[in-house]
Each structure stands twice: as structure tokens, then as C-alpha cells.
């Protein structure tokens, strides 16, 4: 069974603080993704990666950094959190070859006050 684990599942952060959302996958998939979900917008792509050491900008990368230190781990970093980054964040993995089915984690709910 494909497994993508996110942590923390819930976090309250202060404006201007640093937040790191972590994602671990045991699928040995090449690709990993970070999306945010807000009412009315569906899931919007923030950053993604094709493998260890690689990060790519998605559609809304401003205010976010990403890090892929290994095949298994992909982090999303908010250096200076703002209230507009209050959202639910989803991590996903995919094989990257033909048949890039996405497998999602359970989501991380972030509130920035």
C-alpha cells in the first residue's frame, strides 16, 4: 500500500515565524508535490520535485521554499509565515514515468495568527 505521511497534522504559527512542513513517502516514487487547498480554489501547486536534490516551482511558489534531501523526504518551508498562508497543505508522491498516479498524505492544517 502506497504511504505518504505528513507532519505536523495541525499547527498554529505566529506571523513572521518559520514553519516547516514535512513529508515522507515509502513508495520509492521519484516525484513529490506540495499543494495547498483553499475553498473555491481546489488544490494549487506550490513546489514539486523529480528526485533527490531537485526542486521546481509550481504555480504559487512565492513565500515558500522546498527541500528534497532524499528520495523519501520533501519539505515545504515558510521562512516568514503570513496569515495569507493559512490553509490545508497536501503532499503527494508519483512514480514520474507513464502512469504518474498521485498518492496523497492526509494533509497538514496550518493557521497563521
Amino acid at each position, binding site marked *: 500500500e502506497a504511504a505518504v505521511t505528513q507532519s505536523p497534522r495541525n499547527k498554529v504559527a505566529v506571523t513572521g515565524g518559520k514553519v516547516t512542513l514535512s513529508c515522507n513517502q515509502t513508495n520509492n516514487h521519484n516525484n513529490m*508535490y506540495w499543494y495547498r487547498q483553499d475553498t473555491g480554489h481546489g488544490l494549487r*501547486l506550490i513546489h514539486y520535485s523529480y528526485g533527490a536534490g531537485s526542486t521546481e516551482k509550481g504555480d504559487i511558489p512565492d513565500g515558500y521554499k522546498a527541500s528534497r534531501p532524499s528520495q523519501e523526504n520533501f519539505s515545504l518551508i515558510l521562512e516568514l509565515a503570513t496569515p495569507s498562508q493559512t490553509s*490545508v497543505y*497536501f503532499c503527494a508522491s508519483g512514480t514520474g514515468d507513464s502512469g504518474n498516479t498521485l498518492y496523497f498524505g492526509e494533509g497538514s492544517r496550518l493557521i497563521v495568527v
Partner: protein
Amino acid sequence: GDQVKQSPSALSLQEGTNSALRCNFSIATTTVQWFLQNPRGSLMNLFYLVPGTKENGRLKSTFNSKESYSTLHIRDAQLEDSGTYFCAADGNNNAPRFGAGTKLTVKP
């Protein structure tokens, strides 16, 4: 976002009836995925499609790449089909973009 438009945005069905959800794409799309997000927020993959049709139980999905759309047909809707359905379009860079979703409510 605007790259992938889903319709309708919300839908209410009586148990046992049929319906269809649609996605239109304004980006070059080689593959399409459909997901169901349950009321607890978990996302489950329903279909991964190249141009053509797939069927799984009461669900059937078609991807027409020439006309840039995909449909998801639900037959004999059940209460457990309730949730939000998302489609995602992928070009050649393996970075799927999602639509805004269709919230489906199945009533007894």
C-alpha cells in the same frame, strides 16, 4: 484554477440516480486523473487516464484529448459517493494541475 475548469461546482443527487461531472482543459493535457475527497479530507485516486475510457464498478471516466475535456459518470449513486470530486490535468512535465472541484451530495 482557470487551467482546469470543473462543472458543476455542486450537485445533489437522489440515491440510485445517475450523473456526470465534467472537466475542460485550457492547458496541453496528456493524462487526466480523477480524485474523490471524502468528508474527512482524505484524497483517493479514482482513475488515471490517457485518451480513452476506463470503468470501475459504478464509475466510468472518459478523456477526450482532441476536444480537451474529461467526464466522470456515476451510475446508481450511493450515499458513500458523497464528497468532492477533483480532476487533475498533466502535460509533459508530470506536474498535475487541479480543478476547483465538484461537491456531490447523495440524498436517501
